[in-house]
């Protein structure tokens, strides 16, 4: 991966000036490259990774992993049914996977009822959906490479040779 992308993937708040210093490129070159990535869709969005467990008002926020078995369709394979499913705003991620089922969804809702309703009334009755298995998330330990607990603080002495 390009170095600029690598730096931004780790921390989206690093400024072009700082990236320029880190990489030995000029500020203009960095800005230009970022703009290009944004326009071409390589950089999709800048988001903040929040540990919702620590935010009180979002305690009712639930997330489920749903395994979906579907019947692929002639000519379009899985794409068509996948599109019909991922277009629901409740579906935050949708992957086609190998193994005993076909689509793996991550679905979010305000509470268990809302997610269950979505499954019962929208997802399961859908034509070509053969079955679902729902796993509600109980606890998050690690997400996108980040361990979701208080950071391991350095135990180094503040000065040494």
């Amino acid at each position: 991966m390009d170095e600029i992308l690598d730096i931004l993937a780790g921390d989206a708040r690093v400024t072009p000036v700082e990236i320029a210093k880190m990489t030995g490129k000029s500020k203009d070159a960095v800005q230009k490259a970022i703009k290009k990535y944004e326009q071409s869709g390589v950089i999709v969005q800048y988001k903040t990774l929040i540990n919702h467990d620590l935010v009180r008002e979002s305690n009712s926020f639930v997330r489920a992993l749903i395994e979906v078995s579907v019947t692929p369709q002639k000519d379009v394979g899985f794409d068509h049914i996948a599109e019909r499913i991922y277009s629901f705003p409740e579906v935050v991620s949708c992957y086609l996977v190998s193994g005993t089922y076909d689509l793996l969804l991550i679905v979010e809702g305000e509470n268990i009822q809302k997610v269950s309703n979505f499954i019962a009334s929208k997802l399961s009755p859908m034509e070509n959906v053969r079955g679902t298995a729902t796993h509600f998330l109980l606890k998050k330990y690690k997400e996108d490479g980040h361990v979701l607990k208080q950071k391991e603080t350095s135990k180094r002495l503040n000065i040494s040779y």
Partner: protein
Amino acid sequence: MKIQISKKVDDMAPSGIRAFFDLVLGMKDVISLGVGEPDFVTPWNIREKAITAYEEGYTSYTSNKGLISLRKQIAHFLKHKFDLVYDPETEILITVGVSEGLDLAWRTLINPGDKVLVPEPCYVSYAPLADMAGGRVIRMVTQTKNHFKMLPAELDQICKKEGIKYLMINYPSNPTGASYNRKELEALVKVIKKNNVVVISDEVYDDLTYDFDHVPLATLPGMKERVIYMNGFSKAYAMTGFRIGFACGPENVIAGMTKIHQYTILCAPINGQMAAEEALVNGHKSVAAMKTEYKRRRQFIVDSLNEMGLECHMPQGAFYAFPSIKKTSMTSIDFAQELLKEQKVALVPGVAFGPSAEGHVRISYASSFEALKEAMARVKKFLK
């Protein structure tokens, strides 16, 4: 009655620096640029191996030279990475960090009065250990304008003039970050051979070489027989607390070092040795990830320092920048003390690394980017 300690030991440590260290260690909420170890915790696979080793009951002594399995791994690693061949049975010794290896090597090699050349600025222990072993330490000052590298002509001159028997070399260097590419090493080797000098080469920062591939001194033609090669796991694998290093060299030298080692240390801790083996077998990715990070921080720090008028060359390795503070007209200890008091930023006064390093400070960029950014802002404020 007050027990008198030996004059030699009494004369050792520079006291001003010790007092400054104590000041730093007693202060809270300091942003530290003064640390001589990586800011990463040891990679998990290595820690996990150490834990499992305890669980499985590996709590005993090992052979004096160290676990043969670890020595074999080291031999394999050096052969594979540098085409550097050492016999794990007779030419490799596992030590408690490179620090112990240095002590052993000097005590094994030096006869009273033998002249040991120590280029300066350099790591704090080189001269005292050679001195303790009975050597006569000759200091060779490397110049800021040469980015603190030894020049072959200077080396030749001093070897001839002083009758140097041993040379201490450390690249990439703590504290200056100076290193040598193959061509530069070849020029030095010519002089080393011509003057029949034996070299201790501390290459513990070798994985953190940024602008070219590190070349071990012992790999150059005819050098293996006159080099004691030192390396360890502290820096490359963030394993400082495990205290594992190794020395490679001619059989008779390693045998001599092992004699002292068996009486003073017996063996390096078994747990650290097992963790070190895991580092060699599965640790490469962590090293690579760190290097990319450090390289970015290096650029950032050097640029920031030069921008605020603290002249700084681009270090080629390790994780230290060594800027000049001459424009402030302060001594390096005063600079460090005032900066600590006013802005709560800690760094190491240059003078710790030899009298010729006065007028410089050592800045470690083995800290998070956030911390470095904040520290640079504070140094800038301090200079105003």
